[in-house]
């Protein structure tokens, strides 16, 4: 028994098995796009896709994928071809590199819990923050590569927004780190076994939630893809699957951001011991619990998208620098006080 566990925790085996996570995340991105269209339709009192794949339009995304795969792939004549081709790789690569460090629930056997993650290391939260910043570079490459005015404006807005929200995001993460005294995301998730951090640090959660919405580029922070002003943002010149890859990367970012939110503030996969002690069901119960929470967060984000109007770019930057930054520092002081009270 132990040898199997040891074999599975060999980094090589873990890395290669972890590639399955990419498939799962791709699949869940497809489901999220479908959910976005169906749930968004519900919010706008429409019906949404219902012609292919039964009443709920389950095959709609398959049809879209087939179409995108057989659509012509254009590279504009004035484009910088290398950057144009590399940009989706960087955007998707940033999403892939985030998948590595995020644990998607855990299998609990007795007192031991084995997180389902491709890898674990001591500073995974910092790593996630660093790697997710790479996608900004990808968007800049896409915009500069396609040599389109709308794309350039989109890229500059995107960078201006990202740098306004990275600092509050970082400080709100420190607010958690000072309480757990660890940057390992597994330890952070396990530390909130009795009490979720959202109840301990409500201000920190508000800052984190808004910052991660802005980081993911979801409405009301999608100034870089404002259809009314900037056509399709960085993707204006991208056709077919090349654009589809970028779109998928954005949805993967959204799912992973939701996972991060659940892990940092909503208690991760922790369940009371009497549930995990049930013979087989209990072993896998934490995974279902984790997925359920992620689905709730994703649906909240989708609901926010369809319910709120878009901010102007100057309002966005002001919100980041002048409201969220002081609030995050305030939350840090509160977290330090709590950490001193309980930790020492």
């Amino acid at each position: 028994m132990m040898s199997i566990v040891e074999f599975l925790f060999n980094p090589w085996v873990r890395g290669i098995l972890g590639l399955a996570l990419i498939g799962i995340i791709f699949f869940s991105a497809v489901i999220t796009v479908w959910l976005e269209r169906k749930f968004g339709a519900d919010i706008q009192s429409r019906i949404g896709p219902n012609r292919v794949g039964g009443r709920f339009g389950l095959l709609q995304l398959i049809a879209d994928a087939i179409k995108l795969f057989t659509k012509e792939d254009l590279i504009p004549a004035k484009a910088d071809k290398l950057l144009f081709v590399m940009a989706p790789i960087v955007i998707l690569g940033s999403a892939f590199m985030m998948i590595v460090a995020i644990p998607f629930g855990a299998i609990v056997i007795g007192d031991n819990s084995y997180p389902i993650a491709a890898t674990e290391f001591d500073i995974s939260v910092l790593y996630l923050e660093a790697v997710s910043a790479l996608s900004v570079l990808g968007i800049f490459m896409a915009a500069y590569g396609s040599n389109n005015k709308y794309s350039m404006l989109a890229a500059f807005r995107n960078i201006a927004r990202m740098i306004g929200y990275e600092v509050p995001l970082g400080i709100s993460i420190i607010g958690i780190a000072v309480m757990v005294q660890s940057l390992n995301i597994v330890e952070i998730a396990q530390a909130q076994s009795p009490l979720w951090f959202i109840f301990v640090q409500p201000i920190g959660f508000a800052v984190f939630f808004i910052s991660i919405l802005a980081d993911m580029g979801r409405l009301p922070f999608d100034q870089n893809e404002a259809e009314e002003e900037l056509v399709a943002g960085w993707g204006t010149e991208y056709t077919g699957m090349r654009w589809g890859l970028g779109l998928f990367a954005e949805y993967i970012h959204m799912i992973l951001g939701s996972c991060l939110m659940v892990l940092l503030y909503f208690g991760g996969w922790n369940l009371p011991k009497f549930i995990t002690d049930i013979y087989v069901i209990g072993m896998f119960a934490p995974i279902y619990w984790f997925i359920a929470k992620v689905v709730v967060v994703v649906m909240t984000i989708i609901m926010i998208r369809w319910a709120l109007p878009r901010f102007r770019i100057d309002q966005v930057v002001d919100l980041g620098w002048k409201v969220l930054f002081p609030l995050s520092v305030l939350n840090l002081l509160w977290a330090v006080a709590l950490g001193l009270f309980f930790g020492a």
Partner: protein
Amino acid sequence: MVGILEFIVFVLISILTIGFSILVVTARDIVRAALSLVATLVSVAGVYVLLNAQFIGIVQILVYVGGIGVLILFAVMLTTQELKGDSDVE
């Protein structure tokens, strides 16, 4: 065995770093040069991780991609020199 693997990874990262840093000075497009510089700095992060300094490695990515890289790109986009893509040259 393991030492050899580490050596191979180190050589690969070094080649990447040197290659990108050569691109920095040879690229005709100033933005391509800036992006190659960012790529160079990211590959240096790989060396740090290989040296067991994982915190420094991650900080390298965070600061040099998120911060300095963006700063350089903005500075490049501020220059009065007429920007021309390599696609015109090739």
